[in-house]
Every structure is written in structure tokens, then in C-alpha cells.
């Protein structure tokens, strides 16, 4: 993901002037940072198109989607490999991308195009506990927060809308949007959540070795 994003940025700004790094933090009312939150800067200037780069990867490992949240730029291709020795049946009913994909053992499915912005919620019709997200953004400037709730990016000068997304955020996402102007100085942008994040049900990732799921 980060390699892919880096390529996109390199391509786009090979002739542009870079500002110093920008740090974005997501903190709740207790000052705690939150990981795995998608952050993206939508430029006000002319929109950018995606380059011809390798598809992003949404893998299935130990009957889980890996990564749990994948952010991609609009018009990206996403590959769905199956690293398990059993079959999966991945689907989405989301408006941004409705599809189903039979992932047989040792079967390599063609990558899919994600041409619409928004949230794509993934499930598996074989393993009901599997849940994953593809979040499609219309900008090359995106990433996810680290364990401290931080994300760092070098951005070219300009005006942007700074936006965030996570399935666990309860705040109105519009209210979290910041209009920012990037100059040639480093800055730290903090997004404060007014409401607590929803509980992360990560225990679903502790999969029983044996089950009678077919």
C-alpha cells in the first residue's frame, strides 16, 4: 500500500515543489491516538489521475481479510489472493462496488476495478466472521494512522480538504473535515474526535482451528 502510494506521489510530483512533512493525528477526548484510521487530503487544485501501477492487495489469511482496512485511490485495481488452503467466497453489497468472487484454493482471480469513491464492506459467504473494508478515495494523498494514531506525508503546497474515515468513528465525518492550506513549513494537524470510537471486535480474528463450517 505505502509503496504503491509512494510511486503515485513520485510520479505526480516529479516536477513539483514539496513542502516539508505534514503530520496528522487522530485523538479522542482523552487525548488517546487511534490506529488504522484512513486519512486523506483532497486537493482543491486540478484533480489527479492514477498512474499505471500494480494492483493493491486484499488477501485472505487464516480466514481474515488482510489488511482489515485497505485504502485505494479511485480507479485502482485490487487483487484478492487466497493465502488459505480452503476456499473463500468474497462479496460486497456496498454501493461503491457490488461484487462476488469465488476464491477457490490455489485459484488466482483477476483483479477488480474500484471506480467509485466510498466504503466497500467485504464479507465471506463461507466464513461469516470475516469482515474487511476497502475505502476508495479520489486523491493520491492518503494513508492510515499508525499505532500512535499518527500519519506522516510530504505534501505539495496548495489547498486541501483533510478528511478521515474509519468504521469505528461515531462522529459525523463531515464535522471532522478540515480545510487546510499547505505551505513550505512542517505542521502537525490534529483531528479531535468528540465521541468515543466504537469497540474494535478484534477477538473475531482469533479463529478456532476446528469448526464445522463447510
Amino acid at each position: 500500500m505505502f509503496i504503491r502510494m509512494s510511486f503515485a506521489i513520485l510520479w505526480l510530483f516529479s516536477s513539483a515543489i514539496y513542502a516539508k512533512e505534514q503530520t496528522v493525528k487522530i485523538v479522542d477526548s482523552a487525548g488517546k491516538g487511534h490506529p488504522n484510521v484512513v486519512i486523506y487530503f483532497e486537493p482543491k487544485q486540478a484533480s489527479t489521475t492514477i498512474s499505471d501501477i500494480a494492483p493493491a492487495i486484499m488477501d485472505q489469511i487464516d480466514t481474515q481479510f488482510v489488511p482489515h482496512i485497505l485504502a485505494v485511490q479511485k480507479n485502482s485495481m485490487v487483487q484478492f489472493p487466497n493465502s488459505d488452503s480452503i476456499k473463500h467466497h468474497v462479496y460486497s453489497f456496498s454501493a461503491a462496488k457490488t461484487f462476488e468472487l469465488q476464491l477457490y484454493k490455489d485459484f488466482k482471480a483477476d483483479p477488480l476495478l474500484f471506480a467509485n469513491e466510498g466504503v466497500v464492506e467485504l464479507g465471506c459467504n463461507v466464513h461469516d466472521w470475516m469482515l474487511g473494508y476497502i475505502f476508495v478515495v479520489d486523491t493520491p494523498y492518503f494513508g492510515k494512522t499508525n499505532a500512535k494514531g499518527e500519519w506522516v506525508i510530504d505534501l505539495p503546497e496548495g489547498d486541501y480538504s483533510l478528511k478521515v474515515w474509519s468504521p469505528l468513528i461515531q462522529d459525523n465525518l463531515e464535522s471532522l473535515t478540515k480545510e487546510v492550506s499547505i505551505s513550505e513549513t512542517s505542521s502537525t494537524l490534529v483531528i479531535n474526535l468528540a465521541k468515543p470510537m466504537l469497540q474494535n471486535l478484534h477477538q473475531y480474528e482469533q479463529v478456532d482451528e476446528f469448526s464445522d463450517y463447510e
Partner: protein
Amino acid sequence: MRVINLSFILLAVLSTGFAVSAVETKGLVQVNYVFADGQPSWFENGTGILAYSDSGINVQQALVEVSDSYSNGISFSIIANYYQRGEQNLGISQAQLRYKPLMGGKVRWRARAGFFYPKISLENVDLGWLSPYTYTQSAINSWIGEELRNPGLEFTLYSPGRARRSAYSWEITGGVFKGNDPTGTILSWRGFALHDRQSLNNDRIPFAPYPTVLDEQQVFHPNYVEPFHEFDGHLGFYLGAHLDYFQKVKFRYYYYDNQADPKAISFERLYAWRTKFHSFGLQHNINKNLRFISQWMTGTTTMGLRAVFVNYDAWFAMFSYKLDRHRLSARYDGFKVREDDFMPNDLNNSNGKALTLAWRYNLNKAWQVGVEQHFNQNFAANRATLLEPTEIDQQQSLAVLQYRW
């Protein structure tokens, strides 16, 4: 035979008219060396409650599962088994067509049809309804494997917890079936046993020639049962409820009633037995390595005009510990059959307790070795009618080599 026909029809339907698919074939073979205690088992028309009478090398399990699934949510699987022991050596243990439509939402449904097990057991979760824990299965599930199968339909409503942002997932399931009329026979005469021999589609389970059973003036029944016959045309049913906390704790309740007419009788003089039970199952994955599994079953079965009426209880508690490629399991079983009927000469009381200890080691993904030691003490009142001691202690040691693909 009916099941085989059904299987061919399913295959024919599924092989036409569907898009991308990939038939998957899995298999498993277990070969053992058994140190037996010399007590003849029911396979030899004896009264022992363990599968092996004599020491030696055996094919313990040999099975192939063929399955496929389609993008419309339809899938099928057929499991064919070879058994060295028993009357039917080659046959089908399960054949089912499943429909699980692709759907979002908090409450979803799925259905299956064919010849299959209700999901009563938390123990039998390996390929081919085998146990990944011990080779000799619990008394409860040894009996289910022998006499219970669902040739019928099952409908399930289920709610995956993650779709509701909840730690709890639930299922409610109901099935209707035919062809389980003699279910209960083996419990009433032989009693509970501990083994891994599942009955095949057209199987016959022998038992000892108890004089009161064979006597034309008394029960007048052959000393075998063919468990999957239909005599009375009645539909049996079962209802089940599952509740899971993540995948850490699993609870299952099932109520089974074959609704058989206990006066119905076949030309072979096999009876329909009205068999009902409640089953409660609990699994707790205490941590990543250690799990606890328990099950309790309580029920009744009756035949004729209360010629035989028994109530039965069985339970087990098992701890299983996994360390790297090793799995150690220890299970304690208790079981009891009590009669309350109009034929006091035909003795049906039996009971017992058993301890099973197993170590299984995965050499790699395909090969596994293991050893198991089993002890039991059991009582069967009708051994007296064969001039045998009613109480016996049994032991069995197994060394098993397993290959799966």
C-alpha cells in the same frame, strides 16, 4: 441405495448449468495398530463396548470428500468411506446439497438437503465428521455416528455477530427427516459404546444374540439393526440453537424426536423406536492452546407397546491442549441406560464410565502420528442372559498413522 441415487441426481444437476466451479477432493486415511483386550465387540456379536476384539493392524478410517460450490450460493459435498470393520464396508456417510444465498443484513438464512448430521457435536469437527482430538470418540457421538443421520431437509436462521457489531453470534435451526425409525435399538440392548465407526448409508449394526431378543415368544427381533430405514411414514424433526461468544465460547442445544410409531415393524422384524433426546454442548477455548469441550444428552426410546422403554443419559468432559505440533486430549465419559417397561425378562439396564487419553503429532500438513489409551468400566445386565459377567473393565491402546490430502 436411496442416498446413492440422490447423490447421482445431485451430481447430474450440478454438473450442468453453472458457471465457474472447481471440484475439491479431500481425503483421509488412518491405519492403526491396536492392542485389544480380547473382549469380543458387537461386530463379532460380542458384548464389549470397544470396536476391536483382537490386537493387530487395521484400516481405522479411509474416506474421500468431494465438494464444490457455485457463485449462486449452492454447494454440495459427498463423503464416501471404506471401513474394515462392520457389515457395509464401502458406502456414503454424508451427501448434502447446501444453499446459502449471498445476503447482507443482520439475520440471514441457509438450507441443506440430503443425508447428513445435525450439527449437534462440538467434538466431531474434522473432515468426515471425525474428531481431531481422540480416535475413540465420546459415548454420545459414537452413538450419533451409528444410529443418527438426517435424510431430509434443514433450514437455519443465523446472525453473524460481526455483522451486528456484537460479540455474540446465534443460529436457530430446524430439520425434518425420514429414515431414522430404528434409531434407539442399539442403545436399548448393547448400550453405549466408544469408537469411531460411523454407519454408512445402507449399513447394518450387529449385536450379541441376546436370547430374549431373538426368542419368538419374547421380543422376536434379529440381533442387528439397520438404522436408516423408514417403516411408518412419519416425519421426524429436530430443533437446535447455537450461541457463540466470538469463537471463544460455543453453546449448542438440540432437541431430536424421530416421531416414530413404536408399533411399526418391518418384514425383517425391525421395529420403529420412538426416540427423543435433548443435547447440550459447550466449548470454551480457555486460551490459544487449551480448550474444554463438554456435552450432555438425556432422552428416551421405546418400542412396541412399551415392550422396551428406556431412558438414557450420557455426558463427557474433555480438555485438549495444543503445543506447537502436539495435541494432548483427555476425556472422561459417563453413560447410563435405565429400563422401565413391560418385559422384565428382557434386560436393558447398562452403564459405564471411561477415560480416553490421546496424543497426536503433526509431522507436516499431510502426515500425523498418534497414540491413545482408553480405559472403561461398564455394566450390562443382559450379559447375564449370555452367561457372561455383567460388569467388565476394558482397555484399548492405539497407535495411529494418518495421512490426509
